[in-house]
C-alpha cells in the first residue's frame, strides 16, 4: 500500500468569492487534482495560517472551500478577494460511501460545507436525500438553496426560530429518523450534535458516518496533532463510521489544542 500523496503545495489564485451567509464565504479556485466528497485540503493563506478545509466543491478543475468565521484566520478569510493567492495541498483523507439509496444528512454550523458535495454526488446517483439543516438563525442556514436545487428534501432548525423548527437540528433529525427508512446518516457539526444523532440512529440500526475535525498541522499522518483516540483524523478520517468512534472516550468530550493538550469542548 502506497499511502503517499504528493502534498506539494500549489499556489493558485482565488477566482470567485461568494458570501454564503453573514459569517460564511465560499472561495473558488482552479485546482486540478481529483477529489471526492468528504475529502479536505490544507489551505495556506500566506501571512496567516494554513488550515484544513473540506472541499465544498469537489468536481472538475474549479474546486471550492466554504469558510465560517471561527477565529482570527477564518475571520481574515472572509475578506479574501478574487485574485488573492492561496496555497493548496491535498486532497487528503477519505470520503463518504455513496452507495446508500436513502440518506439523512444532518448538518450543523459549517458542516454543510462538506455535506453539500456529498449529497450532490448521492443525488446524481439517484439516492433520496433528506437534509436536516441547523443554524443559529435563518440567514446562517448554509447551502439551504443548494440542497434544494439538487432535489433534496430540506428540514430546517434555527436556534432563534427565525426559520423552521425553533431549537436543535437534532430534534429535526430525530423526527426524520422516526419517520423515514434511511440506509445511512451523514453528519457534520459540533460533536455534541453528532453524538445525539448517533444516539437517535443507533437503536434503529441506521449506520451513521461523522465527518470529524481536529487541530491539524501536517495532514499526512505524522505530527499527531489530529490524534483522536487510536485514529488520526487526517489519514484515518475525516469520515468515521459511528461504531469506530464509540470506543473513543474523547469523542464529543475532548479535543486537543495546538500543544497537544486535551481540552474539553
Amino acid at each position, binding site marked *: 500500500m502506497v499511502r*503517499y500523496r504528493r502534498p506539494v503545495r500549489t499556489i493558485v489564485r482565488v477566482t470567485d468569492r461568494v458570501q454564503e451567509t453573514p459569517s460564511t464565504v465560499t472561495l473558488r479556485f482552479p485546482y486540478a487534482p481529483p477529489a471526492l466528497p468528504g475529502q479536505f485540503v490544507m489551505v495556506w493563506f*500566506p501571512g496567516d*495560517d494554513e488550515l484544513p478545509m473540506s472541499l465544498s466543491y469537489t468536481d472538475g478543475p474549479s474546486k471550492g472551500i466554504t469558510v465560517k468565521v471561527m477565529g482570527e484566520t477564518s475571520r481574515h478569510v472572509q475578506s479574501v478577494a478574487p485574485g488573492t493567492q492561496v*496555497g493548496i495541498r491535498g486532497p487528503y483523507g477519505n470520503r463518504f460511501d455513496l452507495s446508500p439509496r436513502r440518506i439523512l444528512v444532518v448538518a450543523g454550523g459549517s458542516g454543510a460545507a462538506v455535506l453539500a458535495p456529498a449529497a450532490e454526488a448521492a443525488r446524481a446517483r439517484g439516492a433520496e436525500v433528506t437534509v436536516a439543516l441547523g443554524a443559529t438563525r435563518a440567514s446562517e442556514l448554509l447551502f439551504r438553496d443548494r440542497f434544494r436545487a439538487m432535489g433534496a428534501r430540506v428540514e430546517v432548525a434555527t436556534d432563534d426560530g427565525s426559520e423552521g423548527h425553533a431549537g436543535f437540528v437534532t430534534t429535526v433529525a430525530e423526527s426524520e429518523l422516526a419517520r423515514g427508512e434511511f440506509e445511512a446518516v451523514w453528519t457534520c457539526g459540533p460533536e455534541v450534535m453528532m453524538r445525539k444523532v448517533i444516539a437517535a440512529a443507533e437503536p434503529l440500526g441506521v449506520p451513521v458516518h461523522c465527518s470529524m475535525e481536529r487541530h491539524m*498541522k501536517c495532514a499526512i*499522518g505524522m505530527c*499527531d496533532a489530529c490524534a483522536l483516540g*487510536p485514529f488520526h483524523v487526517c489519514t484515518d478520517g475525516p469520515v468515521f463510521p459511528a461504531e469506530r468512534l464509540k470506543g473513543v472516550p474523547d469523542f464529543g468530550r475532548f479535543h486537543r489544542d*495546538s500543544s497537544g*493538550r486535551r481540552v474539553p469542548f
Partner: protein
Amino acid sequence: MADLSVRFAGLSLRNPFLLASGVWGESGDSLAGAWAAGAGGVITKSIGAVPRAGYPNPTIETYERWGLLNAMGLPNPGIGEYPREIEVAQRAGALVIGSVFAGDATEFARLARRMAATGVIAIELNLSCPHAEGFGTEVGSEPEDVEKIVRAVVAEVRVPVIAKITPNTSDPAGLASAAEAGGAAAVSAINTVRALAIDVHLRRPVLAHGLGGLSGAAIKPIGLACIWQIYEAVSIPIIGIGGIGSGQDALEYAMAGARAVEVGTAVAFDGISVFARLPRELAGLLDELGFARFEDAVGAAHTRV
C-alpha cells in the same frame, strides 16, 4: 530467522526499530499504536516544562518521496499533563522512552526527573532541535554544553540517558564524546538538518517559521556519516536516525555502528505499518547475508577500512 532483539545500555528490545521523537508521539494512543504496529520501542514527542503551541502552519513541506521539511516548533502539552499519555501507552504494553528538551542544564535535569517518574525505560535528550529558538544556535552545538547537560541529567535519574546529537555541526563525534564524558548511556543521531524552502510565487519562505529541519531519505547519507564518525570516537552504544525506510537502510546504519535505529519520516510516507514491514525486511536480509543476529552486524563496515 535472524534474531532481531537488541540489548544495550541496560535496555532490552524485541527489535531495533524505535519510533522517532516527534512522530506519532503527542498522544498515548498513538504511541500505543506504533507499539502495536511492531516498533521495538517508542519515543515520546520532546516534552518541555510548560505547554507549547509550536509555530503556526505551514509547519511542513515535502519533496517527492525523498525528503520532508518541518518546523513544528516543539509543540507539546508540557510535563504537567504528559504523564497521562505515557500511562496510556504503557498500559498498552509499550516500552516508552521519554524525550525532553530545555534551554539549560538545570531545566533539563528538572524535566528529566519528572519524566523518569513516569516509568519510562530511558530518557532521550533533544539537544539538537534546529528550529528551537536558543541563543542563535542549538543548545547542543557546543561540546561543553552537551557534557554539562548530560552530567546534570545523569545525576538526577536512574534510567539510561540517551543524548541526541545534532548534524548541524562540524564535529558530530566531538559532541558524542562530550555526551559520553558526561555519562550518557548512549547517543542517538541525527536530528533534522537545518534547511529552508522558498516559494517563488509568494516570494517568501514556505514554513511559517522560515527555517526548518530536513528529514527522510535525503538525510540518510548524512546520518550514516555521523554514525560512522561517532562510532570511531565513542564506546557507548549508538542509535542511528535519519531516512530509514527499509530493512536495508537499518542494516546500513548497523554496519556504520548503530545498535538500534529510530524511524520518523517513513511513517508519513508509508504509514505506521512500516513498523511491521521493517523488522520483516531486516530479518530477511540478515538471513540472506548470513547473519544469525542483528547485533552481529553492528560496526561490521569498520573492520575492513
